[in-house]
């Protein structure tokens, strides 16, 4: 029924920018204050999305990513710095004036309203006429496949359905920006991967600039056009997933992303980094001239869905250090614990960091 109707106007491809953003919570008094004594949740962040981009804010819990998102939404006032949407400073504006839509971690559906009433709520707040509201709600519901749920209350929905309702509520307003705060963290693992896929297709379909907060690197790598890695209120690196993975800007990014994380071996005033999957038996890399040979004293092996994770101590390229090698199923070199083997890493795969600052050299 709704399919024959025209979809609303093409989405605004907005640019969101934050400049010199600082957010301090005074200890205790602020209800969301983390820890005591002035805590800098955001410590001088400069960041800009591109038009229609899917930008993921990735970091461990407490790194300030959610606070940054809430500041962009207008739910927190920054201590210093500005938020710009499409070049307009919106720092002092209340959330409703910013044309942003947010999906909360808890989905924050209004429990006393039906799904339809939840979805039209932003439109009613905007003073839209009833027929237009209903038409848009049905359009959003159809896009997300929840038309059959419109009469239900949120209580009667599953986690995945609630997430779609929350998305539909965000979508109907045709916001300039979507802000998503860990929308998948309340779903079970199986549902999460399919929801991740849907979320990506959904964003590509509507094309609205999206800022997505997560602590899950798999979500970040899978969803993001670019990833901004945050730690302690600072942006450590912004880049495409492959850049963040292959060329981490510092040891934090190197060890936060990747599972198992990048191996770091101290050598003089440097740290030599290489990914577990690049540490392979020397025989496998035999054809490669430019490789660094590394003896590995193996002490433990794990079999994980075809891959072998080989734990051991490397010597030769720096101080003896415990590392992990991830051998794909295609490498069938026999390896057993307690033996020392010749491993190697292609030199092009080695990354060097300053031992003092942790920054890439």
């Amino acid at each position: 029924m709704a399919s024959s109707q025209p979809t609303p106007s093409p989405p605004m491809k907005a640019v969101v920018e934050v400049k010199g953003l600082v957010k301090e919570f005074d200890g205790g008094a602020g209800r969301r204050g983390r820890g005591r004594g002035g805590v800098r949740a955001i410590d001088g962040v400069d960041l800009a999305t591109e038009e229609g981009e899917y930008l993921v804010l990735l970091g461990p819990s407490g790194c300030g990513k959610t606070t940054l998102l809430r500041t962009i939404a207008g739910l927190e006032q920054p201590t210093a710095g500005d938020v710009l949407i499409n070049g307009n400073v919106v720092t002092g504006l209340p959330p409703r004036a910013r044309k942003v839509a947010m999906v909360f971690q808890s989905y924050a559906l209004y429990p006393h309203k039906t799904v339809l009433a939840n979805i039209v709520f932003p439109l009613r707040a905007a003073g839209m006429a009833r027929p237009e509201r209903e038409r848009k709600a049905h359009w959003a519901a159809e896009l997300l496949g929840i038309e059959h749920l419109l009469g239900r209350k949120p209580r009667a929905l599953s986690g995945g359905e609630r997430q779609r309702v929350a998305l539909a509520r965000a979508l109907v307003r045709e916001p300039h920006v979507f802000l998503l705060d860990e929308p998948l963290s309340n779903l079970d693992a199986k549902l999460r991967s399919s929801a991740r896929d849907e979320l990506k297709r959904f964003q590509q379909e509507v094309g609205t600039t999206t800022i997505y907060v997560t602590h899950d690197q798999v979500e970040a790598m899978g969803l993001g056009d670019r990833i901004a890695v945050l730690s302690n209120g600072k942006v450590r690196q912004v880049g495409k997933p492959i850049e963040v993975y292959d060329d981490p800007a510092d040891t934090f990014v190197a060890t936060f992303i990747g599972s198992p994380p990048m191996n770091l071996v101290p050598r003089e005033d440097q740290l030599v980094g290489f990914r577990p999957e690049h540490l392979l038996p020397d025989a496998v890399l035999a054809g490669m001239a430019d490789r660094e040979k590394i003896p590995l004293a193996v002490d433990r092996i794990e079999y994980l869905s075809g891959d072998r994770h080989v734990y051991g101590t490397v010597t030769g390229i720096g101080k003896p250090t415990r590392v992990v090698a991830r051998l794909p199923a295609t490498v069938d070199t026999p390896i057993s614990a307690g033996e020392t083997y010749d491993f190697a890493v292609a030199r092009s795969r080695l990354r060097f960091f300053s031992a003092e600052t942790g920054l890439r050299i």
Partner: protein
Amino acid sequence: MTAVREAPAGTATGPQPAARRRLADREGALAWLFLMPSVVYIVVLVGVPFVLAVGFALSDVTAGDPSYDFVGLRNFRRVFDDPVFWRSLGNTFIFTGISMVLIVVLGKVLANILIADFKGKWIVRFLVLLPWTTPVTLSSIAWLWMLDSIFSPIDWILRQMGLLGRPGDLLGAGSNMYWLGEPGLAMASVITVHVWRLTPLAAVIMMAGLMAIPRDLDEAARVDGAGYWRRMFEVTVPLVLPVAAVAALFGTIFTFTDMAVVDVLTNGGPNNATQVLTSWAFFRGIDGGDVGQGAAIALFLFPVLLAAAIAILRAVRRMEVG
């Protein structure tokens, strides 16, 4: 030794001292033990007086002649013929109705203040809760002085503000309002004191309700573009409604059954303008000595209180389900 200890009670080895069930393990007996005080309380202090009240209402017992003679519904017929009874009944509903609305609305406002985060909030909270913690009679006497026919400080303030005391003033040329002397003002005064006294209780109940609403919901509504009033009436109020119902019902019961405020302030006057069921029952049964009639009047509280109790239980159950 340890093997014997571990054997369950009642096996072939016979009951060992360590394996015997202690009182603390016998849940059936414990249930009785723990329930007994409240059962005794209800039977002795609620059940017996209720049966007595019904019994007295059907008797000719008076303070002067305590011998029990069954007279059927004679007391009720007399009560129905008494215009003061009907006036008391009407007043009771007016008092309760108006007080309840004011208590719930002001309770919600005060609850917002109680949960707000600002400097010096502890003193505000203290002041808000003070009326509820003061004994009823004490605070009623304080109000009696405030509303005194000659020395009322409220009248003094009104005179200073130029609203009272000179010809052409808004509230009249008389030097005093006679808060407790004019029928309408007396009723308003009693309602005011009730509201003043019960609002803190409602505020605390509503505060609990407000705190239970996830902050996300309010924030989602803000991002969705809803202003203060829309958030209040479309998000906060519906979610706090079951709790507000409980506050309202408590307010109803406390207003409906209270006679201290009326007794201290007006003693039912002027000319029975503030007479309520409780004060009239007391006046008839204790002051007047006609225990039978007093009991018959007091029994009219029962259906309303029963309905209120059922409504409270329903509201609580709905909250549990939600």
